[in-house]
């Protein structure tokens, strides 16, 4: 979703940890900040999947709960 962005500090819950970022920030920019830009990850914002094709235009909102996951070893 494209929401109008107000510059300022945004607080989000990223993988269960409180983080602050300068607004506006897209999912793609967030992954860049996390050093995950080239990695195979999946992103969920407030329990909804954000498809890879929309990482660039999906703007993160204040208080969003974001999960970034990968595949790891498991049975």
């Amino acid at each position: 979703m494209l929401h109008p962005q107000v510059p300022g500090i945004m607080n989000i819950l990223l993988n269960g940890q409180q983080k602050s970022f300068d607004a506006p920030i897209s999912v793609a920019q967030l992954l860049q900040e996390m050093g995950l830009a080239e990695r195979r990850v999946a992103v969920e914002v407030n329990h909804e999947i954000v498809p890879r094709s929309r990482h660039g235009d999906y703007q993160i909102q204040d208080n969003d709960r974001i999960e970034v996951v990968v595949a790891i070893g498991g049975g």
Partner: protein
Amino acid sequence: MTTSISKVKEIGERARPDKPLIVAGVEYRSRLLVGTGKYKDLDETRRAVEASGAQIVTVAIRRTNIGQSPGEPNLLDILPPDQYTILPNTAGCYTVDDAVRTCRLARELLNGHDLVKLEVLGDEKTLFPDIPQTLEAAEILIKDGFKVMVYTNDDPIVARRFEEMGCVAVMPLAAPIGSGLGIRNPYNIRFIVEAATVPILVDAGVGTASDAAIAMELGCDGVLMNTAIAKANNPIRMAAAMKKAVEAGREAYLAGRMARKQYGSPSSPVGGTFF
């Protein structure tokens, strides 16, 4: 759907034609599926998977480490999805919601790949599945287009329910996950196999090669294991042993074992002796 006693009795006494293992429309040569957890490092994981000959490998979906170094190797780099069928599992999920979210994240992660292993656990001590929640999650996932391989207990009635609702494979446990206790109820596994028209794979509880062979001799279409290989003293060698055990068990099942007898029966002719 009923299975008569006489039909069950025939198991192990008649040669059978081979049937390929087909899961969700894809044919597999290997009937051994392996997990990728509990290994020392990614190199050991890769070598064990190679030695096992497995074509389907399970993975877990977990949070990235925030601040992870970009050069850190990734599981999918050593097990490329174009060479292996990656089977994301919902291990560690205790609720319908957690399991469904995990599958949706996995599908996104794997570019729309929709084959998943569903497990919804009910108890931290035994890791036994929570069947009502597993049924509910399976229904949601199937409606959402997933192809569900479902981890369940060794209850034939529940196995039939999963098949009827459209799961592409039903995977009863041999014993609790990671216990290595072997097949604790071979009779139930046999009933499940007899009644099924989808692949039945023993998932969890195998401890060593003979356990895998027994699962296959019972007529299972495959075996899924992780700890038995990863926690062997030499995981690479155990992976190779498991590959042979699954193949041997399958051959024995197809060959049809001899009937059991209470007393001895000489292998050499009793006539023509000179003594």
